[in-house]
């Protein structure tokens, strides 16, 4: 009885866990319904993600997904990272049961949010604050 090896491995041995001293972009996403919280921090130079860290609390799937995502993103051009799809992340995780997709995709939402906040100076600065996305989870009443 176990999760896919990738999920267990990244849950037990998270990569790029922690904080950056001076992040160029950062965002937090949460699923209020199940208590999963993930924070993603980015160090960006020359439109490339030089550094990435995550911190989080929650289930094995959301934390493993954050760890896997940091490896997918590290060293990638910003535009490429912004183009990472749900399917790409799920496939890097070795597949996730359909009842837990919102857990698995929470870190990706945090990454997209962080990238959305990051703009090069000639873009005119960060966009106006956007409301936190409505976290949905598999369990309610």
């Amino acid at each position, binding site marked *: *009885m*176990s*999760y896919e090896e990738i999920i*267990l491995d990244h849950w037990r041995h998270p990569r790029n866990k922690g904080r950056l001293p001076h992040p160029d972009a950062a965002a937090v996403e949460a699923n209020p*319904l*199940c*208590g*999963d919280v993930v924070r993603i921090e980015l160090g960006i130079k020359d439109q490339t993600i030089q550094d990435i860290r995550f911190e989080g609390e*929650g*289930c*094995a*799937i959301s934390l493993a997904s954050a760890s896997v995502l940091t490896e997918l993103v590290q060293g990638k051009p910003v535009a490429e990272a912004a183009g990472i799809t749900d399917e790409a992340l799920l496939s890097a995780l070795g597949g996730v*049961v359909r*009842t*837990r997709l919102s*857990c698995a995709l929470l870190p990706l939402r945090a990454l997209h949010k962080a990238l959305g906040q990051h703009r090069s100076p000639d873009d005119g600065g960060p966009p106006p604050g956007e409301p936190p996305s409505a976290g949905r*989870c*598999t*369990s*309610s*009443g």
Partner: protein
Amino acid sequence: MEIKIRDDFPLLQRTVHGVPLVYLDSAATSLKPEAVIEAEATFYREVGANVRRGAYELGAEATERYESARAKVASLLGARPDEAVFTRGTTEALNLAAWALGETVIGPGDEVLVTEMEHHANLLPWQELVRRKQARLSAVAVTAEGELDLEDFRRKLSPRTKVVALPHVSNVLGTINPVPEVATAAHEAGAVVVLDAAQSVPHMPVDVRELGADLVAFSGHKMLGPTGIGVLWGRREILKDLPPLLVGGEMVHEVWLDRATWDDPPARFEGGTPPIAQAVGLGAAVDYLQAIGMDEVRRHGQELTALVLDGLLFRPYVTVYGPADPGARGALVAFSLAGIHPHDVATLLDREGIAIRGGHHCAQPLHRKLGIPASCRVSFHVYNTIDEVRLFLEALDGVWKALG
């Protein structure tokens, strides 16, 4: 007896992920026996007409079956049929109660007293009500043992308290609350008592007169009946003065262009075409439960609860929430595994065909009080067996081995 009962539930024939289903989430919704499914289908096949339009035979038959279902529900509660209002479920019943009491007994500065162990369905209607009426909401504390703090209740009860709302059985802690004691004190203070009985009526004998509450809400789908049907039982003297939540067809006496007069209860509270086939299905569920006997339903639930409680308390990696005495509980147990998120527990058990609940069970304030984002919960009904409890406990050891 178990084997015969299991044959009545078609869903128990199916497999999940290639293994037999072990359904341990009846507190969320119960499975339905063939008799209930058949009663609902038969209504559509043989009658089909709307109720309270008796000018033709089918209409009269539909009304007869609908009202006969109401009589069955009332007899289960030791009540009069005209005290049982059909709603879509517990949530609608409690919204109706809060709305109607808000229009009659709650004014600025008055208080509604709830508990920290409320399901959101018995919390949010009161939150909205006190906001509308400039009234106040306060909550009775839950003790470390998972019981209502009755001293805190007496402290918070005052002449300003107009409503006391509480669950009969907590859907997380499993605690059976001392409703008669609470109701007596509340009545002395002049408050109306509203009871969320969603986790009690399906599992144990409930006599509304003995309980002493004034309004009692529960759902059909947790007691082997269909979804879309529930009940608000109300003491006759209380119901007669309450206004309807839904106005429109079928709930009026006389209507003019600028005004209308309401019908008597229960019709007054059943505006629009009601869930007729679902009510008939609920009637069949009551028949089914009463054929087993509510004492036996309770005994069976307690036996399984005692067994699972023993198994969980014995495992050092498990924390159990609520009373350790199975006699003080309904047929459910919430717990958590050290350092493991309940959703991971539920997902891994699902791979073994075992359906349990992981989440906050619509009781976020209670989970906040317990200091956890979520919990696991197993719950039972008449079709569950001792073998299923053993399978679950063994599988839980497997989860702990994999993730612990």
